[in-house]
């Protein structure tokens, strides 16, 4: 099948998203019966300055650059629909971020295809394609048959990323300029505050994560844990209630509606580990759970368990580590 990957290069994380998409295609190449030579990345961007980064960094052989004025979903949809409607691909793959999720669904509608959001893998079944994704807030996994082509889907968060770099001389790049396309924008005003302003939080990249939940009890405690995490060389991630109480910023959110991390070690403190949260740490190599509730779901889903007041355990750990350092 002909596969196209739609990359929003207006997003700062576009390269890692492209890597996820390339890895996904590689994993599923035989299922979708495609080849590296025919897979195409359609990249829309607004800033001329990142063109170089796109062409050198993108792990695809066929790249179609589409210049747009700025990212605005209706604008991008109009352009993509125009580009693709005459000879649509069989599969359109979108990254699992905000723009990917919204474009996959709306683009499929425009091309009268089928769509799924947050797909973990695809399977072939008697010549038809199914997407597998989590449902019921991460409690279950569902397999969904795509009914009509083109099959449009966005990837689940935290997908595997391999280094599939393609040397630049093996790339074919074409360009389209839609930046001057007349467009009746619904926008009257628009202002962005770039992410990670005060401190750079990269849960997806962290090797050691301390994940905490509602049991921590206050924003002061979260602040204290942030410092402790930093001292231990870990990144602090939190569950949804912590963010909803405004004890921590959204970029520390772990879970189905936040970041999906894959650290070597995840130290889960005072967090019950319900499926929507667990989704954010399930790719951890080792999970250590410290909780004084031995019925909490995370207990059975951890490698090591300590049933204790996490404060006491953390205090003790810090002392041990300090002693080690002094040796």
């Amino acid at each position: 099948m002909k596969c196209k990957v739609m990359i929003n290069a207006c997003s700062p994380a576009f390269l890692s998203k492209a890597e996820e998409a390339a890895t996904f295609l590689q994993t599923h190449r035989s299922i979708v019966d495609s080849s590296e030579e025919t897979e195409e990345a359609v990249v829309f961007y607004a800033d001329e300055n990142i063109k170089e980064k796109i062409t050198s960094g993108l792990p695809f052989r066929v790249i179609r650059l589409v210049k747009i004025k700025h990212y605005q979903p209706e604008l991008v949809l109009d352009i993509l629909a125009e580009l693709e409607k005459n000879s649509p691909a069989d599969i359109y793959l979108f990254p699992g971020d905000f723009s990917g999720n919204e474009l996959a669904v709306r683009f499929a509608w425009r091309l009268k295809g089928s769509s799924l959001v947050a797909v973990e893998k695809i399977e072939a079944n008697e010549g038809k394609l199914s997407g597998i994704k989590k449902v019921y807030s991460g409690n279950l996994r569902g397999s969904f048959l795509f009914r009509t082509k083109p099959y449009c889907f966005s990837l689940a968060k935290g997908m595997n990323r391999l280094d599939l770099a393609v040397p630049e001389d093996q790339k074919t790049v074409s360009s389209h300029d839609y930046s001057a396309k007349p467009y009746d924008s619904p926008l009257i005003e628009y202002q962005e505050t770039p992410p990670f302003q005060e401190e750079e939080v990269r849960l997806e990249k962290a090797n050691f994560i301390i994940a905490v939940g509602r049991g921590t009890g206050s924003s002061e405690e979260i602040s204290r844990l942030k410092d402790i995490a930093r001292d231990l060389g870990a990144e602090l991630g939190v569950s949804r209630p912590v963010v909803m109480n405004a004890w921590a910023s959204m970029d520390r959110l772990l879970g189905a509606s936040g970041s999906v991390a894959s650290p070597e070690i995840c130290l889960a403190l005072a967090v019950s580990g319900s499926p929507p949260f667990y989704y954010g740490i399930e790719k951890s190599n080792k999970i250590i759970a410290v909780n004084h509730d031995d019925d909490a779901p995370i207990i059975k889903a951890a490698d090591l368990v300590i049933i204790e007041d996490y404060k006491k355990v953390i205090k003790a750990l810090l002392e041990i580590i300090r002693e080690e350092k002094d040796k």
Partner: protein
Amino acid sequence: MSLNKKQIVEQLTKLLNSGKVVTDPEVLKESSVDRFRRFEELHGVYTQPLPAAVVYVQDSSEVAAVLKFASENEINVVPRTGHTATEGGLETIVENSIVLDGSEMNRVTKIDPYNMQATCQCGTPLEILEEQLREKGFTTGHSPQSKPLAQLGGLVATRSIGQFSTLYGGIEDMVVGLEAVFPNGKISKIKNVPRRAAGPDIRHVVIGNEGALCFITEVTVKIFKFMPENNILLGYTLDNMKTGFEILREVMVNGFKPSVARLYDHEDGAYHFSHFANGKCVLIFMAEGPKKIAEATAEAIEDIVAGYDECIKVDTPYIKTWFENLNWDANDIAEEKTEIIETKNMGNTTEISADWERINKIYEICVERIRKEIPDMTMVGGHSSHSYINGTNLYFVHYYNVTDCKPEEEIKKYHHPIKKIIVEETIKAGGSMCHHHGVGKHRTEWIRDEYGSSYYILETLKKAFDPEGIMNRGTIYPG
């Protein structure tokens, strides 16, 4: 001569061998209140005088030393274990009190299956004791909602009761013997015998004393065989509380003892059972025990209920899932915090008891008056959850939106007036204003009305055992 805080702390530290004296300001704040003042506490407001220290004792001799010291220096002592009290019993209303915490005395010292008894120290969490017993095929039969957090000392001190009481009884039916320390330092151990008539039953001086007479250090309870495979859960919807009380009475009067016998009114029912009982009352029973007895009990209940046309049976899975989520856990408590702060919707409970004749009238008048007289109410209802041959309890649940009101004024504007209505109507009708939470500090103003002429007996106990008045001032006995 009264000591200042620094001196109190110094002396306490000297007294203890391995016990700890904690003076961390956050701990002191937290230790000045219990769940009664949780609205203030959630907003970071602490209105009570701070204690001088929280003392974590390791054994009875440390308890004796601290109490003696407190007696000699007229320092108020607040005994505590699990910190789940709901009526203000743990509030330190006197400045520089000592909070005497037994939670580190947490060993289960003996499980005796042949004599069907288990002994543990006061700081043993009920859930831990229960787990250890279940591993061996036994149970305490005691399951209050606070079970995951409450400890034996406090459970005995408050005359607590659990969800299976209609079969197993309240804590007073479960306690065999105990050990308590008195303000003069005297350590009194009551031995474990099945029954005796060697004078009045002195256990009842200790059980329910709410820390106003002594400090409980050890408890022995009866244990029972754990046979959950025989449990039969039954649920019904019905239209009226009056009918529900009649059914409960019939079950009890005819000699049946389901472990669970609950009747929810439509308001309280709507909160728990909206998915199958919209606008209806709900009856829940559990038959428990040896197989044939459980089956016979369930059959009898079904027969009794069948005599009332308005009752419709509910599929068991509905009730089962609800029941499994009934007890508190740390997650629920944390979630409650967020909900209260964001929605400003606050709720509490008032539990009373009365005989069969009066219970429904008390229910109706209280609900009517609260709706009429208290502003900003969002819910008022209740349920009966502990039945006896001669009556039952009623657990009122009342929620309101705290409107135009500072956190520290919430009790005055809402909670106290609500309690006043319920207490006054109940006592007027001849019922009891406190079924199982204890008097604490917030129902003391009605204690003489509660007792009438028998107050003499209650107050003499205080004069005898705590002449200096150092034990939990303001609890049970007006401060």
